[in-house]
């Protein structure tokens, strides 16, 4: 892939993202024209416009971009280390582990709602989600290791663990009050409802740090994707590197899940589309995957918010409905 072509495609995607963001800022129960949005962003909007843009819509969009980037990169890593284009944090139980812990926390804890959760809870969520997803990855790792980790076995075990965790979650869901239940539903299906600047302050630095670390070592990921023998031949310590990248992918998925719940298929769509645009080199592919996932999630959130307005559906559902047909198409095409 030539540098120039890559730059051009990145620019197109970036402008696409900006367009979607603009639409997301405009549309809603209170409609704002593009001109007014520019005015508001420049600091001369009315009080109502200021509030809508800065306190409600912008944090939501920024959070969507953060979450989507984390999931896109996480999916890209997993597809690299398992050498399977269908690997995805949502389907192999990583998101589910995080969601389980958050659900346990919600059901054990308060009857308060999302926005009024105490500060400690907001701070604790990402930590809790990371613990949960780490445990579930550890479980998958243990169960699938038999004279080393085989990618296919890893994924299949992940699907099984995912099913088990979902059953446990559904048990807690059913024994909950209706208010708690709806709160949990947004977690298990993924939603950006109730996002505010606190979440962003908490997750943004970590996500940026982790993505930076991944990109810094992305050459090793390229080598890993070649296959175990080749990678070992080049002098890479395969088990160590694979574990490292697995951990990075897990943390990224957990961070995303901790603020937006379990959004499936986004980690599949982003990297797969990106790969078609940039080729397989991870240093270029992963940023593109983050970009594409962001476009998809911001767009999906606009649909989730407005399609059945005033009712909002979890954005994860919209992503799945778009993602699954693509997934099936990939499976039928790829052999």
């Amino acid at each position, binding site marked *: 892939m030539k540098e120039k072509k890559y730059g051009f495609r990145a620019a197109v995607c970036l402008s696409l993202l900006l367009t979607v963001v603009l639409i997301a800022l405009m549309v809603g129960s209170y409609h704002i024209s593009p001109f007014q949005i520019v005015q508001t962003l420049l600091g001369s909007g009315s009080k109502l416009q200021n509030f809508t843009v800065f306190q409600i819509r912008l944090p939501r969009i920024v959070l969507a971009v953060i979450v989507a980037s984390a999931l896109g990169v996480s999916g890209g890593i997993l597809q690299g280390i398992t050498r399977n284009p269908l690997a995805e944090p949502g389907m192999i139980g990583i998101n589910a582990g995080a969601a389980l812990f958050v659900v346990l926390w919600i059901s054990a804890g308060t009857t308060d709602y999302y926005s009024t959760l105490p500060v400690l809870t907001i701070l604790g969520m990402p930590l809790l989600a990371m613990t949960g997803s780490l445990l579930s990855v550890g479980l998958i790792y243990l169960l699938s290791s038999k004279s080393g980790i*085989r990618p296919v076995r890893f994924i299949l075990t992940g699907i099984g663990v995912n099913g088990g965790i979902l*059953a446990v979650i559904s*048990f807690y*869901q059913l024994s909950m009050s209706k208010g708690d*239940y709806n709160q949990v539903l947004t977690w298990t299906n993924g939603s950006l409802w109730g996002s505010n600047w606190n979440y962003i302050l908490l997750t943004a630095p970590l996500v940026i740090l982790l993505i930076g670390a991944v990109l810094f070592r992305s050459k090793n990921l390229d080598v890993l994707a070649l296959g175990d023998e080749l990678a070992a031949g080049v002098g890479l310590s395969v088990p160590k590197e694979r574990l490292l990248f697995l951990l990075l992918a897990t943390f990224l998925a957990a961070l995303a899940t901790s603020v937006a719940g379990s959004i499936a298929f986004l980690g599949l769509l982003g990297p797969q589309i990106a790969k078609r645009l940039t080729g397989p080199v991870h240093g270029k592919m992963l940023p593109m995957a983050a970009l594409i996932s962001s476009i998809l999630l911001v767009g999906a959130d606009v649909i989730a918010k407005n399609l059945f307005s005033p009712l909002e*559906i979890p954005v994860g559902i919209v992503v799945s*409905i778009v993602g*699954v047909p693509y997934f*099936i198409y990939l499976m039928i095409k790829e052999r």
Partner: protein
Amino acid sequence: MKRNTIILTAAGVLLLFAGMIMSVHIGAKNIPVSEIYRAFFHYDDSLNAKLVREVRLPRMLLAVLVGGMLSLAGTMMQGIMRNPIAEPSVMGVTQGATLAVSIAAVSSFAGGIYGNFFMGLLGAAGSGILILVFTMGKASNQSISRILLAGTALSTFFLSLASVVALLGNRSQELAFWVAGGLRQAGWVQVAVVAAAGGFFSILAFSYAGKINIISLGDDAAAGLGISPERIKLLIILYLVPICGVCVAAAGNIGYLGLFVPHIIRKLIGNDYRRLMPLSFLYGSTILVLADIAARTISAPYELPVGLFTACMGVPVFLMLVRKEKR
């Protein structure tokens, strides 16, 4: 092997019988066995007799039917796909039916019990066709990992759509019960429909046990013996669809039952589907009856979804099978 089969059958019948009696006996109010007997043969209008006839009995019979049929469906699916992990709930068939039933529950155009059954059939048929298209297409699509990934994707898809439907109809917690599976809606109508429609196709399916035996040897072997594997597969899927459809419409999405029951039976008596299918049916019934007793009593007066128990038993078996994957 022959002796094993006899022992297993005798034990299964005994267990099922004990389970059936226990299921009628145990509940929010324990009914003594003598009164159960009276409710059958000397019916009076007492509360206990009514309880037995109108509540406990249909529920127990539904558990017997649904458990047996789901486990039979799993056995057949594994036979025609030559894949130990194939199962209606893993492949997305029951989730398709769940979606259709949730649409029926929310909208008014197909309401009522019969509407549920009709929609369940429709949904199961839709996802059955998808799977058929997928597995018939290419030989490479029959590998375990691909079938599993496709099934997981399909079930996620159907359940996502079902959640949208439920959210719009403000029924999401009810849907969660559908998704997890439970027998609390059991009544005589459900028993009758499941027994009639499901029973008919189950018997048809039993008559194909010999053919499934041949197919499970491999497509080439089957063709060599003068049997068209494609035709048999198509027929079996056609029988599977109504069986799964009525089961989901009556009892929700009870997962993994068709995975671990046939697996255990297969370990004990081998791969002969002529014995495997009836025994899977028998033990599927037994396990669902027992699981339903547990679901009703463990956190009484609340009812747990019975699918939770089948998942608890099924997921470990699933993981064990996956561990055997070579790649």
